Structures are given as C-alpha cells and as structure tokens.
C-alpha cells in the first residue's frame, strides 16, 4: 500500500548505486540488518549504509512541534490534527531520538517525508535514502476522501513504516468476517485468538518475517530512485504492489526474489551498466 509523493528533491533524479537506510529507532535494527543481508543476496555490489543516529540531534521543541502537527486524529478529516501539547512534544522528542517507540501513532506521510528531508544530512542526496519509522504513516486519498495507512511513501527520502507493514495491507477477507462475527456476538475482539486462527497469513508486530518483507520494500525504494517505477506486475516479484497481506507474504517471503527482468535491471544499476532512469 505505497504512496507516491508528488514532490521530489531535484537531486534524487539520477542513478543511485548505493542505499542509505536511516533507522529512526534502534529497536528495529535487527530487522534492518536481516533486510540488508537479503539485499546483498540480490546484488552483492549494492553498497548499503545503515545509520541509527541520524536524528539524534533533533530532539528540539521546533521539530517536536512539527511532528505533533503531523499527527492525525480522524482518518476522514483531512486537516484535523492532534492538539499541540507539552506532553506530545516531549513524546516526539523521545521518539525522534530513539528512547520511545512511536508504533501505531498515525502520522501524515507526505508531511513526514518532507520533515525528514530537512533532517537528513545533505550528503545523503547522492544515495537512495530510506527512513525506517515506527509511526503509522497515512496519506489522503481523493478517491474516497479519507486517509489510508501505507507501508511506504516514495520520494526523497523514502519512508517505510514498520507499523504500516502490519496495518496497511489488508488481512485475509475471512479474518475480518470472523472478527465481525465476534464483535456481534458480544464476545469482543479476540485479537490473539484470531491471530492463532489465521496464523501465518499476515504479518504481526515483531513477526520473524519482518526482515524479509522489509527487504522487499527497500528494493522498491531503490527502484523508485533509479527508475521512478517501483512496482512489478508479477505476483512473485518482490516489487509486486501488494494490497493484501497474503500478496505481500507471497512476493516478499515465499518468493523473496525479483523477477528475471528486475534482477537484471538491479545488477545493471549497481554495476554501473545500462542506465534505467525513466523520467
């Protein structure tokens, strides 16, 4: 469930042979390392830098206030945001400097990407850059006039949401029917029981497959930077634009590979061969 940002930094147009991964919260580092290892399997020559302290100097009132202003309170109201408060700013400072996790905090995705752009070092402009955040990123859709949770917002930098991996692609249709039946029965939403009933069919928080899924989205980001086309139509290619958890798991866990065409493209990109930039 990605979203393409309409605005891009001018310097991001052009071939990038390296990938910089900024991990906002060190707690996600294990999954990021797994993903980086898998990316190296795809293309050993791909240079990847992982950074965990990129925002550590930005725990300021100004940045915290900007982050609070991106918090969404109602998915159906485009402009409605959280009320600024000392408590929320303090939380945002801790989240930005890695001492608190912002899992599930709904945040306007394009605004967040623009904010990160101000914070990341200018030297990153020569690389494909991905920020891994705990926040639940959401973008507005004019189709149905509401916000939708996203796994990734493409742009500079790309933003991948760890909460989005869990929340954005839809779970199996039967899951929602079973949940609805439980709601109506008055038993309540037995999330754990449903998780066991549908075990393996969707990604949960701290799921052991998270690193594999993350690798797929990192590849999409890398392709976006180099070709502006992050997706593939093949359901078994890691670049498949999954709208369902089961599609995501199929493309990025069960297959975990690029299709032949995209594998060749990747190898050419990182080896400095044919330029696949498409504008």
């Amino acid at each position, binding site marked *: 469930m990605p979203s393409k940002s309409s605005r891009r930094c001018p310097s991001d147009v052009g071939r990038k042979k390296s990938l910089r991964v900024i991990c906002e919260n060190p707690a996600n580092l294990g999954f990021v390392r797994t993903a980086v290892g898998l990316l190296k399997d795809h293309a050993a020559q791909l240079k990847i830098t992982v950074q965990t302290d990129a925002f550590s100097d930005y725990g300021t009132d100004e940045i915290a206030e900007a982050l609070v202003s991106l918090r969404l309170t109602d998915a159906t109201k485009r402009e409605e945001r959280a009320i600024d408060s000392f408590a929320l700013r303090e939380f945002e400072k801790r989240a930005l400097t890695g001492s608190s996790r912002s899992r599930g*905090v709904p945040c306007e995705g394009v605004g967040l990407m623009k904010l990160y752009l101000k914070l990341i070092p200018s030297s990153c402009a020569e690389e494909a850059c991905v920020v891994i955040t705990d926040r639940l990123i959401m973008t507005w859709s004019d189709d149905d006039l509401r916000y939708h949770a996203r796994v990734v917002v493409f742009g500079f930098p790309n933003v991948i949401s760890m909460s989005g991996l869990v929340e954005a692609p839809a779970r199996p249709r039967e899951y929602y029917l079973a949940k609805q039946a439980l709601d109506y029965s008055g038993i309540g939403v037995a999330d754990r029981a449903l998780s066991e009933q549908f075990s393996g069919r969707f990604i949960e928080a701290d799921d052991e497959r998270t690193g594999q899924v993350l690798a797929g989205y990192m590849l999409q980001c890398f392709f976006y930077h180099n070709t502006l086309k992050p997706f593939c139509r093949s359901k078994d290619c890691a670049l498949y634009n999954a709208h369902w958890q089961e599609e995501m798991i199929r493309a990025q866990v069960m297959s975990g590979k690029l299709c032949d065409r995209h594998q060749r493209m990747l190898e050419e990109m990182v080896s400095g061969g044919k330029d696949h930039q498409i504008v």
Partner: protein
Amino acid sequence: MTIFAKASESEVTKAIVSQFSRDMEEFATMDVIIIGGGPSGLMAARDLALKGVKVLVVERNNYLGGGFWIGGFLMNTITVRAPAQKVLDELGIKYTAFSKALYCTPGPLACSKLIAAACEAGVKMLNMAQFDDLVMREKNRVGGVVINWTPVSALPRQITCVDPVAFESKLVIDATGHDAVIVRKLEERGLIKVPGFGAMWVEQSEDAVVEHSGLAHPGLIVIGMAVSTTFGLPRMGPTFGAMLLSGRKGAQVALQELKKMSK
C-alpha cells in the same frame, strides 16, 4: 513475668506523634512526590529510591497497591506479559508460566512484595491522604502538591473547612490511574490539553502506555494508566506488565530531569 516490655499509653501516643511529626517535616521537601500507590507508582518509587532519590508516595486509600492485589473480576491471579516477568524475578516474586508469553502470580504475593521492595528501598509513604491541588512555580512549572486527609472529602460540607497542607518537590509523578487527577487539574486550569487522539493499534496498548510514559508538563511526569488518559490511548485488559515497566520508564525520565536540574 510479662512477655512485653513496659510502655504506657502516653508513651505509645508520643511515639506515634513524634515519628509522624518527623516524617511530615521530611515530606515537606522531597525530590519526587508520586501521587498514587498502585503498581506503577510503587515501581517508580522503588527505582528512584534505589538511586538515592528522596521519594514520597501519597496514597488516598488506607492500603497501598491499588489494583495490583486482584487480577481481574475479583480473582487473585495477576498476569504479566513477557518481558515484565523479569521485574518479578528482580523483586523475588514467584510466578508460573501460563504460556511462553504470559506469566501468572498470586496478587497478594506480588503486591505485598512490591510494597515491601519500595519500603525497603527507602520510599516514604503517606496513605489516607489525597491530592487536592498543585503547587505551581514560574512559567507554570509544577513545584509540589497540596494534600489533605482522605476522610475530609467524606465529611459533611458544612464542617469541611479543613485546610490542606503543601509539600514541595522537584518533580511530581501522576500515577493515579485512569482518573489522572493531576493532569485533569492542569486541564481544569487551562494549562494542559488532553489531546484525545485515538491510537490505532489496539494490540499494542501495553507498549503504547510504556512508550508514552514521561513528561506531561514541566515538572510533571505521568505513568501507569494515567498515561492512557493523558494521551487517549486504548485501555488494557487485566494484565500488569505495562504498569511495572511504565513505572520504571517514569523513574528513568525523572532521573534524567533531576540530573538536568542539578546542572
């Protein structure tokens, strides 16, 4: 020959009064005052006291421990989700594994051990006293609390002209559960806004409480279920891991703040 040594009625009274008087003098100026003696408040108090911080817990009931005595639906089993069982280990509380993620312990055992751990660490307790108001300093910084005896609030209105007393402290911690009485007092004064956003990850409510535990206003830290009220997080089930870890997080934040103040 009698079993007990001699002590007159008046001596017993004098002993109680003089000790209480010394305690109250000490309470008048503390490093940290925690309002609410439930699991999060006791945990924060214990961690702070172990670091040499002067801590007072004010509890409105006669008993400390809040809801930690009972697990849910009047049943005594307390549950904690991993990794909070490590805190039980630390406190010497025996437990059994219900599953690899969930651990059970009898409420009376867990609660009494936590209270004992806090007391042994040097935490001061004032029970049957309740929060009445805040002491405010420059730029609306919280600088202490105004308290009164709990029974005063139960007296008939015409005889309740009982003035409270005030204690000063460098930090105040709101551990008053869903009521969040200190945060609500600040809201009443127009000094804080409870944002009321709805977190969208119900399964993560315990995590969210721990992650949001921290400064809520200059001089005020919020922990436990008061965090839920302050930030509008979803309520949790009858499981206590987040209370223990939220208390611990609050203590860490308090130590950082005290360090900043001492510079």
